[in-house]
C-alpha cells in the first residue's frame, strides 16, 4: 500500500486507485501518518518546510553518506556487537576501496567488450573479507600513487589540475 501512496504522490496512479487511497486515508490513522510524512518531505523539497526542519535534507544526506555498507551475511547479525564493530573498522576501508574499483570495472565492461573484468582476487575480497591478503590494500594504494605520478608526467589537453580529478575521484578507502 505504501508503494501505491508513493506512486500517487508521483502522479503515477489512475483515478480509481487514487479514490481508494483517499478513502483509506480517511479511516486509517497509521496510513494518514505515512501521508503526512510524505507531504512534509514534499514541503521540504519545495522550500516550504517549517523552521525547525532547516538543514534536515543535509542531515539526512549526511546520514545516508555515512551509512555503512552491510556486507555481513544475515546469520552473523546476532554475533557480539563489539566483534562486528572491530570487523567493520578493520575491513570497511578496504572493501570500500575494492567496491569502488569494481564499480568502475563494471562501467568499463559495459562500455567496452574488450575491457577485462576485474581480477578474481578483487572479487574474492568482497565475498570473503576475512581472507583478504594485506598486500592487496597495499597494491591499491601503490596503484593510486602511480596514477598521481602518471598524471604529473603525462599531462593532457585538459587544464593541468583538472585531470587530477581522476586521481581523487575514487581514492582508496573512500
Amino acid at each position, binding site marked *: 500500500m505504501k508503494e501505491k501512496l508513493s506512486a500517487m504522490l508521483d502522479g503515477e496512479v489512475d483515478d480509481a486507485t487514487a479514490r481508494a487511497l483517499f478513502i483509506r486515508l480517511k479511516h486509517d490513522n497509521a496510513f494518514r501518518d505515512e501521508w503526512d510524512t510524505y507531504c512534509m*518531505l514534499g514541503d521540504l523539497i519545495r522550500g516550504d518546510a517549517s523552521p525547525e526542519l532547516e538543514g534536515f535534507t543535509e542531515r539526512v544526506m549526511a546520514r545516508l553518506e555515512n551509512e555503512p555498507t552491510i556486507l555481513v551475511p544475515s546469520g552473523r547479525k546476532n554475533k557480539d556487537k563489539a566483534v562486528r564493530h572491530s570487523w567493520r573498522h578493520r575491513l570497511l576501508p578496504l572493501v570500500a576501496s575494492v567496491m569502488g574499483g*569494481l*564499480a568502475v570495472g563494471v*562501467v568499463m565492461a559495459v562500455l567496452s567488450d574488450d*575491457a577485462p573484468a576485474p581480477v578474481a582476487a578483487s572479487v574474492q575480497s568482497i565475498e570473503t573479507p576475512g581472507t583478504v591478503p594485506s598486500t592487496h590494500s597495499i597494491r591499491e594504494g601503490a596503484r593510486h600513487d602511480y*596514477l598521481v605520478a602518471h598524471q604529473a608526467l603525462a599531462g593532457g589537453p*585538459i587544464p*593541468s589540475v583538472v585531470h587530477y580529478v*581522476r586521481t581523487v575521484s575514487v581514492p582508496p578507502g573512500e
Partner: protein
Amino acid sequence: MTDTKPMGAIRKWLVVGLCLLCGPSFADQPAGGQVVKDEPTTPISGLPAADPLAWLDRISGASRQLNYVGTFSYQTGWRTETSRIAHRYANGVESERMEVLDGSPREIIRQGKEMRCVLPAQRTVIIGQAGKRGNFPGRLPHSHAELTGNYHIRLDGVGRIAGHEAQKLVLMPRDELRFGHVFWVELKTGLLLKSQMLDPKGEVVEQFAFSNVHIGGKVGDELLAPRVKVDADWRTVDVGGDDEAQFKSQWALREPLPGFSLMTMMRHRNGGALQMVFSDGLAAISIFIEPAEAGVEARGAYPGGGAVNVFERVAGGHRITVLGEVPAPLVQRAAEAVEVLK
C-alpha cells in the same frame, strides 16, 4: 522490505531537492561565491583558426596563461562529481586550486611546479610535480604529422557550453589502441570548456565540462589558498622523482607500441619505481617497474578510474604496472612487451 520503494522515492526526492537548492548558486555566480572583477578577456593567439591543429595549440596556451574561475563536472559511467577550480597566471607562474564539492572535500593545490593532493578521508597528502615536462602540446611528438597519423582531426561547428560560444573539435583514432576525443574550445580565448573521451564504439568513457566559468579578470589569493587543515600525523606520499637517462636503463619494449613514442624516464625517490612515459601526442601511458615482493606472481587487469586502465604482471623478479587513459588491450600489450635488455 515492503517499504523499499517509498524509501527509494524519498531518497530520490532528497537528491532532487538538493540539486534544486544547490543549482542556482552554481549557475549565477563564480565558484566560491567570490565576485571576480570584470576585465576584458584576452585571446591567446589572435583570431580563431580554420586549422584544427592550430586549435590544439590554442587550447594549450589558454589553459596555462588565462585566469579563470569556474565549476565543472567530471563524469564517468554513472558517477558524476562537481568540482570548483580557480586558475591564475601571473609573472610566468601558474597557481591553481581545485576542490571536489561532492563527498569529502578533496583538494588539489598547485603553485608553480609543486602540486599537493589532499585526501581528508584517507588522512593523506600526495606531493608531486605538476606539468614537469610542460603541458600539452609541449609533450606532443615533434611534428603534427605524427598526431595526424594516429587521429582523424576535424572541426565540427560551433556550439554553446556554459554560456560561451565554443568551437567543437573532433579527434577520432585511426585504430582501436586509443580513445577518441571531442573538445569544445571557447571561441575568443581558446579555453577548453568541455572534453569527452570516446571508446572504440563511440560511447563516452569520461567527460569534463564546465557548468559555469568566468574567464579573465583578477583571481584573488583567497581563491587559491588551501582550506583543508592537514594534521601532522597524516601520511605524506612523494611521487616526485629524478630524470633517468635512457641509455642507463636496463628495461625496454620488445616491440614498439603503434603510434607511441618514449617521452621521458624517471626514477622515483627512495629506491622507488622506474617510470617510463609513452605518448601518441594525446594519450599517454606510464610503465612502472620496481622489485616485486617475494613469492608474488600477480597478473591482471584493473580499472584505474574513468578512462584509465591498469595492467600488472611480474617478470624477472620485478613488478611491471602499466596504466594510462587508453583502452585496456593497449596497457596489457605494453606490459607484455616490457623486457630486460640482455
